[in-house]
């Protein structure tokens, strides 16, 4: 087991503070548009698909698949950046795949949510690990 990575804390603004507050309860919220009945990410008040402001958060199941990834080999501590497509939501989010064998990662691989600590006590970061 490697030491748990502490991620840099994201900058929280008034529009996204509910999203980040939920991370401290290990919940991943995804913004849903009640008008066009579709999800989007990162969260906005006004739906980027249809322009409606009738949007609200729903909790993601926390499972998904790797859409694409790239292991940053030329870094002090190599890491795997990825887009993960969230099951049943039709959207992909940027994340890191953690606690994994970098050489065994594959596009299409199933992954599950695993929150990581950040430099802020108030915010955790949604990361993923092989399911």
């Amino acid at each position, binding site marked *: 087991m490697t030491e748990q990575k502490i991620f840099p804390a994201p900058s929280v603004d008034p529009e996204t503070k509910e999203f980040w507050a939920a991370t401290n309860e290990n919940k991943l919220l995804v913004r849903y548009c009640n008008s066009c009945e579709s999800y989007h990410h990162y969260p906005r008040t006004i739906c980027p698909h249809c322009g409606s402001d009738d949007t609200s958060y729903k909790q993601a199941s926390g499972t998904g698949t790797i859409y694409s990834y790239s292991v940053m080999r*030329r870094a002090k501590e190599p890491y795997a950046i990825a887009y993960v497509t969230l099951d049943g939501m039709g*959207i992909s989010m940027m994340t890191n795949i953690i606690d994994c064998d970098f050489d065994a990662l594959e596009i299409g691989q199933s992954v599950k949510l695993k929150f990581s600590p950040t430099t802020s006590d108030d915010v955790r970061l949604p990361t993923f690990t092989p399911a």
Partner: protein
Amino acid sequence: MSINGKAYIAGAFEHPVRNAVDKSLAQLHAECAKGALEDAGLTKDDVDGYFCAGDAPGLGPLALADYMGLKLRHVDSTETGGSSYLVHVAHAAEAIALGKCSVALITLAGRPKAEGMATGTAPRDYGASPDVAFELPYAPVITNMYGMCAMRHMHEFGTTSEQLAWIKVAASHHAQHNPNAVLKNVVTVEDVVNSPIIADPLHRLDCCVISDGGGALVVVSPEIAKSLKRPLVKVKGAGEAPKHQMGGRVDLTYSGAAFSGPAAFEEAGVKPSDIKYASIYDSFTITVLMQIEDLGFCAKGEGGNFVSDGNLISGVGKLPFNTDGGGLCNNHPANRGGMTKVIEAVRQLRGEAHPAVQVENCDLALAHGTGGSLGTRHGSATLILERE
């Protein structure tokens, strides 16, 4: 209403410097401006329109108009990253067509090398941009973002590292003739795939160079172009298109060139098979491959085959590209390759490229730029230029 034939590129200049430790940023802009105006046979007092992007210091056109002593009636600081300067050519043509200016100066300069910037491996903080909180903690850098595009392309279409390597090989064949190129050695497919991986699946030699310097262009009205002594390079068509994550419906297999390309071809009234020379944005080998597909030089997914076996080498293949050595070998000033794309297209159309890489009867050229990141959000811009 169209810009086809409404403006001409009369001046073009690429700064020969590649490490500008002894020059200021404003000085580089001004030296590029002077070079392009002298190339056109004009002076700064002829300039009435000025265009610059995010590489300019301070309040962009205000700071540099002050520094250079320009008296202007039209300014434009459209910022779409490395593709800005192709957009500027199109916007200059629009402004000239409407009579808002008649001599438009466009400059680019930067000194990432002198400043020791870790261009490819350090995350960039775009401040208050709304995406930053949801991306920056994961350490997206230029190389792993383009790496994700390449990984997906390989997954969907079977593209290989060897095929991508052919793009660098072609650029290096051209760069050997450019005395100013950062990398002048011809490399092989083996050299590329045996160079160290930076971010999967991109090797060091899949990446462009990091260099200081800059360039400038002068876009003028037809009347002024015809009064000058330079060959006539006409702006025939242009297209621009931002592409992004589409609210999370991420698709890394194509770029905004899929929109800017067809728009430019339609305005110019020509098709991809008519193009004799192409300047294609080459921050990475994968950038070139995706754009060649999106611009319609081959079908989506066929790019790997298309670029192989020297097909991009002047005098050898069907689509001579980046005959100055491109960003991959020659120059990527300010981490923004759009300006040099237009400059080499102008050289080709004038017959002023190096004789070893000059395309015969080069009367129709395309220049294409990508700014920002193909992995997140980027601005694509396409120009079609014709020698008259």
